[in-house]
């Protein structure tokens, strides 16, 4: 059997070989999360879209997918916000600036920002879901006149677990950013909203036909946020969500990230809600 009959002989790049990128800076966000500033060889641009991910690896430890947290508008370096949950992330947390890590990607579709232009952008982020959403938030802030309002709803388990606290304060102060935050359980010092993220949605002032929403958070959050948005009357076609799966290869070969027939690393991780609402394993 002749392979050339089956497909044009594609260029044989090495899909699994990472480039070695340097950690320029690490910043502790909380006890569990660290923000890594990473630079590709020769300061090359990563060339990503908000919502895309890279595969990060340490030799002898492993490789895993992580969302890119910085906006493509900020060139030269990119950022990854990573929570300690397993072997690789524990080891990453021990790394210091100057160390090199393996990077493959960017992978996935990311957010089609063109489609969002001129619209009011509503971001609903729960917990570590803020990490990928921050890429979109800062994209909108840096291209402020391309978009309508920027409305951010952020929910966290407690005020001690809030990420990017300095930036949150900036968003709070900014005139053109409408920032809402709630924590499930506040410390005695917490003066803000208390309650799950859905409690922020009824009070939002939304121009429904002109609003597009991006949701990212823990699996349990999506159904409740969707219910709350629907009861506000936001149309399904205006909702996008970023989903998490285990992506070993990132290039549609290993099969791990399938939701029914869809490969999250190819068709996602950002899905248009109408496309996945009948996929029963999506959430």
């Amino acid at each position, binding site marked *: *059997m002749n*392979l050339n009959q089956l497909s044009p002989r*594609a260029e044989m790049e090495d*899909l699994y070989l990472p480039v070695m990128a340097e950690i320029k800076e690490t910043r502790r966000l909380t006890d569990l999360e660290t923000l890594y500033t990473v630079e590709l060889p020769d300061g090359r641009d990563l060339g990503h879209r908000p919502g895309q991910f890279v595969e990060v690896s340490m030799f002898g430890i*492993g490789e895993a997918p992580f969302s890119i947290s910085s906006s493509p508008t900020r060139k030269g370096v990119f950022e990854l916000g990573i929570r300690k949950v397993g072997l690789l992330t524990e080891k990453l947390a021990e790394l210091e600036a100057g160390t090199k890590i393996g990077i493959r990607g960017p992978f996935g579709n990311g957010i089609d920002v063109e489609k969002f232009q001129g619209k009011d952008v509503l971001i609903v982020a729960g917990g570590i879901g803020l990490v990928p959403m921050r890429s979109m938030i800062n994209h909108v802030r840096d291209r402020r006149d391309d978009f309508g309002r920027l409305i951010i709803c952020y929910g966290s388990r407690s005020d001690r677990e809030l990420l990017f606290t300095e930036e949150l304060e900036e968003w709070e102060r900014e005139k053109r950013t409408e920032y809402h935050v709630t924590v499930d359980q506040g410390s005695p010092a917490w003066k803000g909203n208390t309650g799950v993220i859905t409690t922020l949605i009824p009070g939002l002032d939304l121009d429904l036909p002109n609003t597009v929403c991006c949701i990212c958070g823990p699996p349990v959050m999506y159904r409740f946020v969707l219910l709350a948005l629907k009861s506000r009357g936001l149309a399904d076609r205006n909702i996008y969500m970023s989903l998490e799966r*285990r992506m070993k290869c990132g290039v549609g070969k290993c099969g791990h990230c399938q939701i*029914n027939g869809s490969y999250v690393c190819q068709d996602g991780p950002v899905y248009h809600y109408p496309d996945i609402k009948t996929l029963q394993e999506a959430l």
Partner: protein
Amino acid sequence: MVQFFLESDRVAEFVTHLMKRKPVYAPHRKGRKSYSFERTRDAAGVVLDYPRVMQSVKKFFLPPREQLLSFDLGDNTCRAGEVEPLDAIFLGVHSYDLAAVGRLDHNFSEGRAERNYLTRRQGALWVGVSYEPDEYHFAGSVGIDPYDTEGFDIFLTRLLDGYVLEVLTPAGESLLEGFDLPAHEAGKPAKKHFQQHIYVPQDRLNEVMSASYNNPVWEETALGCVGCGTCNLVCPTCYCFNVEENVDITVTKGSRDRHWDGCMLREFSEVAGGEVFRETLAARQRHRVMRKFKYISEKTGQPWCVGCGRCTAYCTAGISIVNIVNRCISDYEKSTVSAIR
């Protein structure tokens, strides 16, 4: 097309001839009832009349375990694993197993082409052989006849006292150079009958399976299933893999390796933090069967099952994929009939 006749007692001579041209991989007897595709060292060990090999020829192009890259922990560098084309003759391959290789070719060349698999696939030559369908084969139901010569360079159709040898490609012709055979004038034997059938034509399977997501058959199948993943392991079209790091005993060097994985295993869909997206055996059985008859076929236009019967023959719990699909069909037919009424 040229047809010759190869007498049974000249098969070993034929194998020896092929071995002089290139390395030969062929079925060999492994146990009382099992066969395995191996590099042929002794022509007399080749068995052309066999029901199925437990592992298809997939194992040569997508090895159960392979190195993706090697790394040096001292200077934190890596390089790609070395992959060589398999310049060899695959002899005694059944039509469904070559069809399965075609499915894998699609997976590894579509989108971003994969060097490891496609490099190995270059240069393989195929000598097929017909087979007698046993109680597990149902390749006819997915459009693959036991005499299907598609993709082969040479094909052997078994008769009582030998084989009709068809030369199908110039490569096949050159393989035969220097080996004299009498021409075969008569036709080929009548079509083989399968004992197992899927009861709708393959072009209707998408429609049936699309209506079967909530069929009770998944829960019922799960009652017997032990989630061992054997069905994935023996499937010639399953290509999912996992990746792991292996460090050598000096702790200075190591490799990033991939190995076959299976969607019937619980860990397959687990993400960081422990969430498992197909927690139940029912969900995993549904995923496995839907992959074969709906999810991938919707994209590629052909079933991702080649009817070899391995997942049923080797299932530790006696689960039959044909029975599952036929149950979906009968429930679907009942529901459409009652809708008409």
